[in-house]
């Protein structure tokens, strides 16, 4: 250390070898070439608006005019396409079917072409009744597919445009049935998923028209994009807030099994959509939650969490797990029994999530842990002795606010015994002392300073534990060292009565006139 820290200044000699510079320049040149090509590609894309026609090199000024023209053109084309469809629908002569399909295909192409699909123009020209007519029973698959596709694109539009689909819903639902070909059923499910995603009102309509059972049956097979689309549409359909649909779904024959099977075995993309279904089932319906817990749904969720690295999958799976733990006390008391393999598995995957770099995972994992930590003494000790505690301690001092708050719940729960009745909760002194020694108090005092009432209460409650519970009456000193008095005194005139009383009470009791007299 002594030698290298004082190593003499040494600059590059002016007379240097060409090789050094040249190789570096060559490398930079390669990077520059890449950068230039990226820029020209982006430029070309910016200038090219409708379709890929290869007319990239138009000047910006001209492009403006062209674009307006093209937008206008597109609307114009759409109106004529609808007109064309109208004449194809009434035409009964030779090649009528092909004529209809061609007209539908043209309309579908126009509706998929631009980022501003000319939905309004299509609606204005009267597309919906024609499309509904094209969905009539007995129509050839190709026609059904194209019509449903047009409707899918219209449903993806603005809310009022989505509502325009109302007359088409019964037929779209009808084509979900077993007699339909898979591509047709899938396209209809897609359209319906878009409609269901629009809002509560349309969901109610769809449910009352019986969309749920056929969609539910579509998730029963083992694999395929149809299953995935149906699962996605279902998750949109049961979003609530009314829990009825969720309860109804879990009662459909075979759905529970299919969900568990997909969670266990399917590819990650399908499992992701299914996990979202489970999220809404467990968030909304107590009945569904109960059924899932009793059917060991925890096991596949834990396995997915342990083995997958797909964030898209991990988020719904973790939230499902959390819902199951939080939503049903049965989960913690009879399934997650300390000592059981599944319990260790849960803790392990939660630790994995705490270690992740993604804030949603960290936050949700803390939330799940806080629910488990609210359980029995054994649950608390299990978490306490796990790898989670050092991670939580670190998060408490470094993580963003929303995560810290969840973490504080966990740590707080670890220090109090399960509620037995009235009065202040009993302490678990051992845990409290050790967590405080490991530096958690400052994190809680920080929460006391927070503007968030819930977090502040949590901070105060923990401060109370420290004041009351640290041995040798060390509590007040520790709180003072962390500027806790100052933090509590801010509540002197706080508008929230509850917090004000709590804080003032603590200051009076522990830092009253006698405080410090003995020192």
């Amino acid at each position: 250390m002594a030698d290298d820290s004082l190593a003499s200044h040494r600059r590059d000699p002016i007379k240097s070898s060409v090789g050094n510079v040249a190789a570096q320049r060559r490398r930079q040149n390669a990077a520059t070439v890449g950068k230039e090509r990226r820029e020209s590609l982006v430029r070309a894309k910016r200038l090219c608006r409708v379709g890929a026609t290869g007319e990239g090199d138009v000047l910006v000024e001209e492009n403006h005019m062209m674009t307006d023209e093209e937008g206008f053109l597109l609307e114009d084309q759409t109106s004529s396409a609808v007109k064309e469809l109208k004449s194809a629908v009434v035409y009964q002569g030779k090649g009528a079917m092909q004529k209809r399909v061609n007209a539908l295909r043209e309309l579908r192409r126009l509706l998929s072409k631009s980022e501003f699909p000319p939905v309004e123009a299509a609606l204005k020209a009267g597309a919906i009744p024609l499309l509904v007519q094209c969905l009539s029973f007995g129509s050839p698959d190709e026609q059904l597919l194209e019509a449903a596709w047009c409707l899918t694109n219209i449903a993806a539009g603005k809310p009022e445009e989505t509502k325009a689909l109302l007359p088409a819903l019964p037929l779209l639902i009808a084509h979900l049935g077993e007699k339909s070909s898979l591509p047709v059923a899938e396209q209809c499910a897609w359209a319906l998923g878009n409609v269901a995603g629009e809002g509560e009102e349309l969901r109610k309509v769809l449910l009352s028209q019986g969309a749920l059972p056929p969609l539910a049956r579509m998730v029963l097979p083992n694999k395929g994009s149809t299953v995935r689309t149906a699962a996605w549409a279902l998750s949109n359909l049961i979003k609530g807030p009314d829990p009825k649909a969720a309860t109804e779904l879990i009662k459909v024959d075979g759905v529970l099994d299919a969900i568990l099977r997909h969670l266990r075995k399917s590819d990650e993309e399908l499992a992701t959509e299914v996990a979202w279904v489970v999220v809404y089932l467990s968030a909304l319906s107590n009945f569904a939650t109960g059924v899932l817990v009793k059917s060991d749904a925890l096991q596949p969720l834990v396995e997915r969490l342990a083995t997958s690295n797909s964030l898209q999958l991990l988020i719904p799976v973790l939230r499902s797990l959390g819902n199951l733990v939080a939503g049903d006390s049965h989960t913690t008391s009879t399934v997650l029994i300390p000592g059981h393999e599944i319990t260790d598995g849960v803790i392990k995957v939660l630790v994995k999530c705490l270690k992740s770099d993604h804030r949603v995972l960290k936050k949700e994992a803390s939330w799940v842990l806080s629910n488990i930590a609210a359980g029995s003494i054994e649950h608390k000790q299990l978490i306490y002795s796990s790898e989670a505690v050092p991670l939580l301690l670190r998060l408490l001092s470094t993580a963003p606010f929303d995560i810290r708050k969840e973490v504080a719940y966990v740590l707080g729960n670890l220090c109090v015994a399960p509620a037995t009745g009235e009065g202040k909760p009993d302490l678990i002194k051992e845990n409290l002392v050790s967590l405080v020694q490991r530096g958690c108090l400052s994190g809680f005092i920080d929460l006391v300073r927070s503007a968030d009432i819930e977090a502040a209460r949590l901070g105060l409650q923990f401060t109370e534990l420290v004041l009351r519970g640290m041995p040798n009456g060390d509590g007040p000193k520790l709180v003072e060292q962390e500027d806790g008095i100052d933090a509590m005194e801010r509540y002197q005139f706080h508008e929230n009565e509850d917090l004000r009383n709590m804080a003032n009470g603590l200051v009076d009791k522990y830092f009253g006139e006698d405080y410090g007299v003995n020192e």
Partner: protein
Amino acid sequence: MEVTQVLLNAQSIDGAVRKNAEESLKQFQEQNLPGFLLVLSGELVNEEKPVETRKLAGLILKNALDAKDQQRKVELVQRWLLLDGNAKSQIKAGLLKTLTSPVSDARSTASQVIAKVAGIELPHKQWPELIGSLLSNVHQLPAHAKQATLETLGYLCEEVSPDVIDQDQVNKILTAVVQGMSSSEVNIDVRLAATRALYNALGFAQANFSNDMERDYLMRVVCEATQSPDVRIRQAAFECLVSISSTYYEKLAPYIQDIFNITAKAVREDEEPVALQAVEFWSSICDEEIDILEEYGGDFTGDSNIPCFYFIKQAILALVPMLLETLLKQEEDQDQDEGAWNIAMAGGTCLGLVARTVGDDIVPLVVPFIEENISKPDWRQREAATYAFGSILEGPSPEKLIPLVNVALTFMLTALTKDPNSHVKDTTAWTLGRIFEFLHGSAVDTPIITQANCQQIITVLLQSMKDTPNVAEKACGALYFLAQGYEEVGPSSPLTPFFQEIVQSLLTVTHREDARESRLRTAAYETLNEVVRCSTEETAPLVLQLVPVITMELHNTLEGQNLSSDEKEKQSELQGLLCGCLQVIIQKLGSSESTKYAFMQYADQIMGLFLKVFACRSATVHEEAMLAIGALAYATGPDFAKYMPEFYKYLEMGLQNFEEYQVCAVTVGVVGDICRALEEKIVPYCDGIMTQLLKNLSSNQLHRSVKPPMFSCFGDIALAVGEYFEKYLMWAMSALQSAAELSTHTAGDDELIEYINTLRNGILEAYSGIFQGFKNSPKTQLLIPYAPHILQFLDGIYMEKDMDDVVMKTAIGVLGDLADTLGSHAASLIQQSVSSKDFLNECLSSEDLMIKESAEWAKLAITRAISV
């Protein structure tokens, strides 16, 4: 455990004993960290223990507090902070006690450990009494303890940042250090320790340097120390002056005359380590003034905080002769020794910096020296004259230099062929290279290379490539810059008639037996590359003929089997040069349709060779081969898909290799190249690539310079695959969002601000790519939820007012892309953003055409979005 014995065993020459001891130390550490550290500090403090175990105990203690690896370091710091308070106090007490030990090694080890502990604890406001207790009785201490205390203060200043120590303590430290340095201190070791400590403490002395009295005093003590009888003290004192010259440039005016006298004396009379530092002082002043004058940009209303004092301009009459004298003190074989550094080399380097600082003014001061010495019988004089000439070719104006060069050129060419001394020839060839680098090319009005002398120049340079390796290497360098000057020469190049001969000569050089000496082979291949790169259409058939030649060479490197590690290294180096050469050839031939077509017949064969080059290594990928593949991807376009199944694993390997971050960065660039070549055909490989990119980004070991290109790479992928990117959207957006949050605000030095701007640019390029990729797809609505944050980011960086032009251009483009892709969905959000008004207007009135163009496009897109 008897720790002394274990520590002795850990240094045993018997491998088994040593391993055993290391194992038990490790176990002890894992089982009981506080106990372990206590025992070590106990060993270190114990005067009855052997010096080697005390030293080792201290070393292990130090390694338990700090590590090179950043993640490990954070862990160690956490562990120490969580350690039991009693144990820590005991350890620290032991360390402080060791400072008074009669055993010098023990003291020195303790000094370093104390600094490490301080580095951890002081920022946490722990161990507040440390500095006080170190300084409390420093005057009464015996010399050896005083020396250790000062050494500790020095290390401490090196470990902790200035904001952690309050001014009062800084004052006390400086007082103690300066007293230790002063002539009243009789003990040499104490004075040396104090001088070295001051070097580290200078960064803490901002306030003291703003106070005239204190600064005068500090400067006086440092200047006094440069006159010490002890050479180590003189050297350390000059190092302090060098550090002051860059940290406190603007405070130097009152002292510069004295410093000149001191440095001039040292340069002329003192021992080399001291003289080198004295020269370095002036080089460092040049650095400062070049920076300041660059920021002025010729316009004195510039917003640089520090004015230029023109120290160099004022000193040149004395400074230049002093530097010229040093040029005559060459070492005999310095040209053969790559690591050489001596007073002549430092002097010439400084002279070059002075020329860049003062420009034309230096020329009349150097020309007489050149004229007087250039024809002298003593080689030292001829070499020094040539070296002086070569050094001043950057800085002065071409008008001033070209008349000189026109006179000198013939002389130089003769010297290069006829001078009996290799050192002179070496410097002559280098000077020719400098002439071509700075005074030849389309930017210079009067050409120095004409039809009349071109042939002679080339003949001489090619001839010199047969000279000794160092001379040949410099001749290659001269040819390199000669070719570069004709880069934009038009459809016909003056080099065309010589092209074949030049290429042949360079290839011959690469085959010389001694081509590995003086980096000759590297220079020859890089020169060949430059000749190819700057060649014109006329010689395209000849470049095409090079393909089978270089390909064969590369094929030959694959022959050897069971190579020793030395041979493997040689093989890999040669493969690198050949891949680099192919990279340039592919770029050249791929850039025009006619030659590309002819080249394509070799593509399969070349790609096959690149894959074999990769296969030569087990764990790492060959960076140069990777670069060459990027070029090949552009040339082949979508057809590159056929190579992907085999190539993919190496691509992944390169992405995984973030320890060698340059390899990783190059690979990320190649992913972009391949995206543009393959477009949607990249889809099957996207899962793997995206997974690896996201994994890298979440690692805290990733070198920060690779992050911006990785983000740009998201954009490349999205542009290539369009709506298929949906799969990665949530991940990518969340990674971008957290990086965006971090990079909205910049706080720090220029280097950090520059980095943050690169990072912003990468993030913005990703957003552009994603928006443009999704455009015209039915899934654009997926992007709507991200719009508020992206607009917030744009507003945020606009408000910070510290983005550079590149970021500005990309940022305003993103605003347009967002409007373009989301249209009316984002209309109200866009209207609410500051970016869509103030920022856009600022860009519309920018003088930078690229920014203006992007802004006009954005305005158009916004108008459309709002009007729908």
